[in-house]
Each structure stands twice: as C-alpha cells, then as structure tokens.
C-alpha cells in the first residue's frame, strides 16, 4: 500500500536542445541537487512544442508539464521562443477556462550556463505540483482517493 508521504509529482519537461537541455546537463555535471521527479524530452526548439504535447502528457497522467527554452532574444532560430511564448500563454489561459489547474503548465527561460537556475526551477515546480496534488483530470475515478491516476 502506498503511503501519502511517498507521493511525488511526475513532471515531464520539453527542453530546448540549444539552452535548457544543456542547462540541465550543466546542473548534473556541477552536482546540483534537484528533485528526481522530472522526465526530460529534448526538442530542437521551444517553438517545437505543440500544445497538443502538453495535453497528451496530462492525458497520460503526468502531474505537470514544463516547457523551457532560451531567454527572449537568444533563440538559435531567432524567433522560436517568441512563438512558443504566445502559444503557451494562450494554452495556459484556455486550459484554466476548461478547468485544468494553471500550475500544471509551467514555462521557464534557462540558458546553457544556468545549471543552478535549472535546479531551482525544477525544485519550485515540484513544490507547486505537490501543493495541488495528483493529476486526476482524465481519470475515470476522479472522485476516488486519488492514487489511481498515474498508474
């Protein structure tokens, strides 16, 4: 049987290969500690992230989604992160209207040299997700005790 204290959020992240992915790498090589709740998917640019990815992740039972890319003005492809910003902004607002907690959709700018920032972001996001609890949005047993959603 699972203990309540054992539950930790599962976080899926889409990291830009030019910055945040290297940032995550740097966090590792500089031995920064951050929660192991994160699963990383490398994408060519934060602009690659279709809001569909976010919905699919939530459908699969992930408790949160983090999209991370280069700081504004530093995109390898000049404009990818600006477009991602618009897209994620409307996604977050719209999902709130449908009834999804906005905390489940997270975004950050992390450059390749910001290993420390990456560790901080993961820690902060994990804390926020712990507060709102497990994702039962797409679970048939939403009214249940809440442990079935991710299994």
């Amino acid at each position: 049987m699972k203990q309540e204290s054992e539950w930790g959020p599962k976080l899926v992240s889409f990291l830009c290969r030019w910055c945040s992915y290297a940032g995550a790498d740097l966090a590792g090589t500089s031995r920064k500690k951050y929660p192991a709740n994160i699963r990383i998917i490398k994408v060519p640019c934060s602009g690659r992230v279709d809001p569909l990815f976010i919905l699919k992740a939530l459908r699969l039972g992930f408790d949160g989604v983090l999209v991370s890319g280069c700081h504004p003005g530093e995109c390898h492809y000049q404009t990818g992160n600006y477009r991602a910003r618009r897209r994620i902004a409307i996604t977050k607002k719209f999902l709130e209207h449908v009834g999804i907690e906005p905390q489940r959709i997270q975004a950050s700018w992390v450059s390749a040299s910001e290993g420390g920032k990456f560790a901080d972001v993961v820690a902060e996001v994990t804390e926020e997700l712990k507060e709102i609890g497990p994702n039962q949005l797409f679970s048939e047993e939403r009214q249940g005790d809440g442990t079935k959603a991710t299994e």
Partner: protein
Amino acid sequence: MEQRLRNEAKALLEQGKVDWIIGFEPGSLKFTTTPVITKDKNDVDRLVINPFIVNNLANFLTEVTGRVGIVAKGCDSRSIVSLIQDNKVVREDVIILGVPCPGIIDLSKVERLAGKDRDELDDISREGDKIIIKVGADKKEFAITEALFDNCLACELPTPQEYDILLGEPSSPVVNKPAAQAKIEKLKQMTPEQRWEFWKNELSQCIRCYACRNVCPACYCQRCFVEETEPQWILPTPRWQDNLIFQIVRNIHVAGRCTDCGECERACPVNIPLRSLTKEMYDIVGELFSFKAGMDKDAPPLMTHYEQEEAEDFFR
C-alpha cells in the same frame, strides 16, 4: 438586395471575372438555406439573401480552384480575410459580395419562443427590432434579440470590412452582450472542478463526427492531428477524454483565426455548447495580444508574429 446580388453574380460569370459563384439558395426544409456553388449562370436566379443564411461560406474557398465570387456576411468576410492572412487564399482571386448582416435568426430559439416546431410555423418575418411569428391567423411578436444567434448578439461589425461589392446600406449591430455571454459567464462563476465536470459531461455526448472541424473555415489542415497514427495522439473511439483533448487542441490550433462565426456550435448534432470554448479563446487572444481575427488582411497571423515583450509574467 437579393435582386442586386443576382444581377451582380450573373454579370461576374458572364464577363468571366469569376469561375465560381458561392452563395445561398433555399433549403429543402422550411425557412432554411443551403450553400450553392456553381459555374452556371442560370443557377444565380436561385440565390437568396434572407435572415436565415447561417453558413460561413468561406469554408468552401479552400476547396475550389479558380476565381470565386462569394457572398459574405460580416463574420464570413473576416474568415476570408483570415484565410488571406494565412496565404490560403489570394485576395485578387476572390470577389467578395458583402452582405450587411442584420443578424441571423436562430430557428431553435424561434421554436422555443413560439412553442411550436418549425414546420408548424407559417411565417417568420422581421420588422425593425421585432420578430413576428405567424401561425395561421395567430401572430406573435418578440424582441429580435431573443431570436438571434448568440454570436450575432456579440457581433460588433455586422457589415463586412473587406468587400468588392457591398449589396446594401451598412447595418448597425444588434448587440446584447449579456445575452451573448450568458453561457460563458455561468461557466466563469463555477470552480475549476465544476468547469471540468461540465465539459466532461458535455463531451461525453460527442460522437466525434468532426462536423465542428469540417465546417470551420479556420480548420483547413489537409491532415488533422486526430487522424495521425504515428504517433496516435488520440484514439478514434469517442471517449470523453479524447473528445475533450480534440476540442481543446482544436481551439488552440485555430486561435487567432476563429472569428466567432458560431458554425461549430450550429453544426454539432448533439448540441454541445462549443461556442463557450471558441468565444473564450477569442477573448483570450484579444486580451493578451489585442488581436481580433480577420480585421486586417496585411497584418501577420497571430501565431507567426510576436512582440519583444509580452505575456512574460508566468515564465520563470
């Protein structure tokens, strides 16, 4: 107005200025109209303009080749402009026959007002801001705001902004914002959990016929994500989870191109209040980026454009 449309359409076809005319003809059911797409100049005598021309004909523009003369209400003209912005349609290839729209009558609202099926009604007519429903010798009068579609009540620009020929005097909007927003306001009063439950219940009825997608002029992708199999984003079986993802993602994909024409909600065979989703996205886009779809054919589409500083607040 109707006669002028027929004359103009005939002239356009005869002079070879257009290959196609897209308009409305009387439908097979009482009071309804149905789209007509024709190359034949004898067909133009069937063209009509009345308060029942519901469809957004811009949808057909991406399906025909050649030059097209198209009948467009205010919202339709914005859909056309949106297609021009997206390079789906060349401005020079369309001749927009603009109809100053007084608002379209929602037959199901009329049925509710009259308490009778549409087949039992003899006549529905409009005089100023009144709607008159006749059944035999019986005559009932209602305010027009009670009989128009919700999206018509929210419409601020019923006269096309972009047109080649305007078929009448510009009409003034019949705005009733509270009535138009009633369903959405009710949703906003709910808690997020209640909203999710609401949409879960509504989308449980969805049979995934994709009518909402197929009537939408903004949904012009050759291949939709719902039909992709590698990866298979959602299952083709109509389960509420997948139905909801389909609706959410569809709305995100058409953000900045949805002109609040209300076709999706009208097309829905199980009466899911889809406009409560589309209008919310329309408002979000307006609020965040002061963007209104289809207002300026030279402006870049919403999702290909950006400002240096905007929507920053939630980024860590």
